[in-house]
């Protein structure tokens, strides 16, 4: 039997090492949430558009991306991200692995968020749009000033719930070599041969963050969100 190595986890150097990993995990989550919200909003509006050439590609995007494993997208961007972006940034461009991870995560999450946003917009009474248009607002303005502010408020709990999934999913970015929590953990345990302690410690960090967030979203009452939003939000929570 090997002596346990719990004393390592109060060593400031080790804690700083994990702190750096945690910082990467949080940065990955924030970047992925921001990017996927912007892209998701576009595709939600695309799916709701009356124009077929917008609606069909948006529907195809959302439905096919949602049906793929997020790890596949992350691995793909890890391998091909650089050469995909070379036409834009020039020869010799190397996509940092952090951003490859963000793109993989955001691509997947944007499809999920598009569904939540669409459900939120659809859950508003039609009278809202009709009243805004009757008052002389253009389609874009009625969206911007009437529909989206109300719909986004309804979606907050659903998005909070999704945030825990994104934070958990950032662990997958360890597989393409970004030094987030899980990666740091693997580096550490290959030094000290202590995977039990390392993975319990990392699991506890994730637990504190995700449990805290899910409690907060419960306080925001996901249960009282319109049923349509709730259904969509709960649908992809496990993935």
């Amino acid at each position, binding site marked *: 039997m090997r002596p346990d190595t719990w004393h390592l986890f109060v060593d400031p150097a080790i804690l700083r090492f994990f702190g750096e990993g945690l910082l990467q995990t949080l940065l990955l989550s924030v970047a992925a949430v921001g990017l996927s919200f912007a892209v998701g909003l576009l595709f939600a509006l695309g799916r709701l558009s009356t124009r077929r050439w917008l609606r069909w590609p948006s529907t195809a995007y959302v439905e096919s991306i949602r049906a793929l494993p997020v790890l596949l997208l992350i691995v*793909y961007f890890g*391998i091909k991200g650089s050469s995909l972006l070379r036409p834009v940034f020039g020869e010799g461009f190397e996509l940092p692995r952090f951003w490859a991870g963000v793109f993989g995560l955001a691509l997947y999450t944007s499809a999920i968020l598009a569904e939540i946003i669409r459900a939120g917009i659809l859950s508003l009474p039609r009278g809202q749009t009709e009243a805004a248009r009757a008052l002389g607002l253009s389609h874009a303005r009625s969206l911007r000033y009437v529909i989206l502010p109300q719909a986004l408020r309804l979606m907050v709990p659903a998005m909070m719930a999704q945030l825990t999934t994104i934070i958990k999913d950032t662990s997958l970015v360890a597989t393409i070599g970004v030094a987030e929590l*899980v990666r740091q953990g693997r580096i550490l345990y290959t030094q000290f041969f202590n*995977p039990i302690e390392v993975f319990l410690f990392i699991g506890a960090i994730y637990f504190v963050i995700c*449990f805290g967030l899910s409690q907060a979203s419960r306080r925001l009452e996901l249960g009282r969100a319109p049923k349509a939003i709730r259904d969509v939000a709960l649908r992809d929570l*496990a993935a």
Partner: protein
Amino acid sequence: MPGGIVLEFPELYLFPSGLWITVQLAILSLLGSLVLGTLVAIFRVAPARPLRWIGGAYVEIFRNTPLLVQLFFLYFATPYIGIYLGTRETFAFNAALLGLALYHAAYVAEVVRGGLLGIDKGQIEAARSLGLSYLQALRYIQLPQTFRSVIPPLGNVSIALVKNTSLAATIGVADLLYAGEIVESRTFRAEEAFVAVALLYLVLTVPLGIGVNWLERRLQVAR
């Protein structure tokens, strides 16, 4: 030439064999998570508080930590505790199977719990007053009635499970994603390799999704 990979690469058997591993992993871990998740749900609605507490702790722990960390724990840490999940050949597969079942059981438990709580209390009281024991009422009155309401959400959990089987590749199970990575590393044809993998995942998940939607509509009409 796109598609030329089919002619040039002799080891395309990796795709069907990877698909088969993914399917096996998905079906077996789904069965495991249904059984375990139903048990946890019964714990969560049990009359005894310690049982409810155990069920609640299980759900919160497994839902609020990443599946990857759970898999790494099962794969890398169990031998250090003296637990051997299989022989050298079957170890990774068993660890992935167990990890997927444990993780999704937490989501199954939430679905089944919702179904159990949705049943009118009067039904249980009637069953008990007719002389059925608590477990008999659960078995013959409550559980059968949850069936209709839990099928569509359980379908969603199983779609997520199929997608999550891809994490098995990270601990060296030769599943579909793993096949794609191997083909890519030998041919440097990321597009073809990953498009093939993506299409094979879609073949598994899209029919499931259509089936869930169909069931959802059907069960709603029937209500």
